[in-house]
């Protein structure tokens, strides 16, 4: 079931077309990665879903209800890119404050605060002022404040920026637990390997338009194809006349490293090894890599710098 549907969203700021007909949907209990280069329109899209941007065209529906500009649907939980917490307050005080503003009170509020602290691994630091927290702890508290009121959909704008691998792991464990409970999560990130490993689906946006969406295998099929990249490290550079015959690429930074694309590694790799041996070379190391989200992303958005 699509609990969030974005259809043809358009928004222009002066001469900049921030959203140019973006469309996608979020399904129940999925962790959807919204990827795109800087300035692609990700944050505008997140803000539009939360009712903070008045669209020039298109529509956003949450549980089949149109999102009214200026009014955040109550089923949404927002985790902004900024660390939106009060640093002089303790973690518990922050959560209690935002919880009350979300309409929680009494025993329910206490229960939810404890739950959010537990979920984000902050229970033992709940009484410390946030200013004493590390970047990772603040990020986790930022998430706790966004999920405290049991939203059905959580929007997370770069939730793992600037945190160590341990905190990052904890954050994704929390998000996976929420997804397992049926909460739908949409997150933006520039950590493509994270999106690849942790998210069930990916939407790639560029110039305000969704240019691809699907699971990683679907995206690979749509773009770079399912070949493997085989990298061989030789004991010495190959003779120049051998290269066309072996159909390999030489790494421009290191002549002893060659690459080849193979659709079927089991069939194509042995002849290549034989060819190298016959040309007088010796192989020190072999690395076989499948198509990555990084490759898909670069394929779709290009290598040119955007800013």
């Amino acid at each position: 079931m699509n609990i969030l549907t974005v259809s043809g969203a358009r928004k222009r700021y002066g001469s900049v077309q921030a959203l140019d007909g973006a469309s996608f949907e979020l399904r129940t209990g999925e962790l959807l990665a919204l990827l795109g280069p800087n300035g692609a329109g990700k944050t505008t899209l997140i803000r539009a879903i939360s009712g903070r941007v008045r669209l020039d065209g298109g529509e956003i529906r949450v549980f089949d209800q149109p999102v009214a500009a200026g009014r955040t649907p109550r089923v949404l939980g927002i985790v902004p890119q900024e660390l939106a917490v009060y640093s002089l307050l303790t973690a518990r005080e922050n959560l209690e404050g935002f919880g009350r503003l979300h309409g929680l009170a009494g025993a329910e509020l206490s229960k939810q605060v404890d739950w959010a602290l537990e979920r984000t691994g902050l229970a033992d630091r709940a009484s410390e002022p946030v200013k004493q927290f590390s970047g990772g702890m603040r990020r986790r508290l930022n998430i706790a404040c966004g999920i405290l009121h049991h939203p059905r959909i959580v929007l997370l704008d770069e939730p793992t920026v600037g945190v160590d691998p341990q905190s990052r792991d904890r954050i994704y464990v929390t998000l996976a637990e929420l997804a397992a409970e049926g909460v739908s999560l949409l997150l933006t990130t520039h950590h493509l390997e994270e999106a690849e490993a942790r998210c069930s689906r990916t939407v790639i946006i560029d110039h305000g338009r969704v240019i691809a969406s699907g699971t990683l295998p679907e995206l690979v099929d749509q773009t770079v194809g399912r070949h493997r990249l085989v990298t061989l490290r030789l004991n010495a550079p190959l003779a120049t006349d051998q290269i066309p015959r072996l159909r390999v690429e030489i790494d421009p930074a290191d002549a002893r490293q060659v690459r080849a694309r193979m659709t079927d590694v089991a069939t194509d790799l042995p002849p290549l090894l034989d060819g190298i041996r016959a040309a007088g070379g010796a192989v020190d190391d072999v690395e076989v890599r499948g198509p990555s989200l990084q490759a898909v992303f670069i394929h779709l958005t290009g290598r040119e710098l955007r800013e």
Partner: protein
Amino acid sequence: MLTLLGIGWKNLKRDRVAQTLTFVLPIVFFSIFASVFGGRGDDPTPRVSIAVVDEDQSEFSRRVLEALGKESALRVRAAAPNAPALDRPGAERLVRNGDVPVAVVIPKGVGAGFEERGFAGSGTSIVLLADPSDPVAPQMVQGLLQKVTMTAAPDLMMQGGMKQFERYAGALTPEQRKSVDDWIPRLKADAGTPGSGATGGAPMSMPVQVIDVMRTDDRKGSLISFYAAGIGVMFLLFSAVGGAGGALLDEAESGTLERLLSTNIGMTGLLAGKWLFLMLIGTAQLTVMFLWGRVAFGLPLFSHIPGFVVMTVVTASAAAALGLVLATLARTRAQLSGFSTLLILTMSALGGSMFPRFLMSETMQKMGLITFNAWALDGYLKVFWRNAALWELWPQVLVLSVLAATFLGLARLLARRWELV
């Protein structure tokens, strides 16, 4: 070293706000303060408003009051059309209410005594009913009274002087009498012209009695309340702007504003909450200031609690609302800081926080009424100096409440930029 100078110069050259704060703001302040404290070409002297009461109804009293009316430094407050002439209790009321700082009363018998004996012991003094919160006006009116009694009735003074002479030195000869009688009409004709009159003679002066109509038991303490209010209101504005502006802009920057707006509270609720908090903080701030005034300087706070509470609450409400307007108007902290400093210091200078308004030129006094400070200070002055009843504070309460409501409405309108983009 040169590299650092270069970096500093480039930063300054590209930062418009820093340039404005460095070069334009001081000039703007200078101009405002020069206007407030120095007066300007066409309006150099503050005019003192006075009320006059003629109990004597003599030729002398008529001429003195007429001459006072012609003095450029004075503005004689006339009785309302068709109203009876002002009497002494009416004049005292005007002074007590702060409508005029001084009332001149010429009691019965002054004119007769003057005509009989000149300045030499007329026995009855001219009375000045004064409000000592303005220390300058009574002195000024006293000086002008001496001048006009000399210049307005030299003939009467001569007649009185000659009568006094004859009383102690014997009658004049017929020739001397004729000569004096010829001279007196000339003196009368010269009356009121500058430089005329017996100004170069012996130390003679019209006896004047100054009465403090406020009858303040604790004058020093009451004056302290004026300064407590002046400084208190100025810093109330600074803290309201710093608190509200800083908080809102910080919240916008840190993302908490976005988060707050995604809750059930909404922008109206958010602004109302901020306003209430700032109002309570402002009330506490003024209370602490007056309590300190009570402890350290003997300010009579506890005998004026109801008036103090009313004025403090409405003043803090309006200041908090103004803080919200400035906060929603500014885009950055630098803008907020520059603009609010300019506005607050200007309002404080014009409104009497730094320098009593009654000592300013008339134009500046009128201009002061557009400021928030002037109304707040007038209210505190009524409470602590004039011992006004609560209902008498209605103009100040009304104006400050309307200002607070207007500011809140404006802030709500301006805050729309945070709600939707």
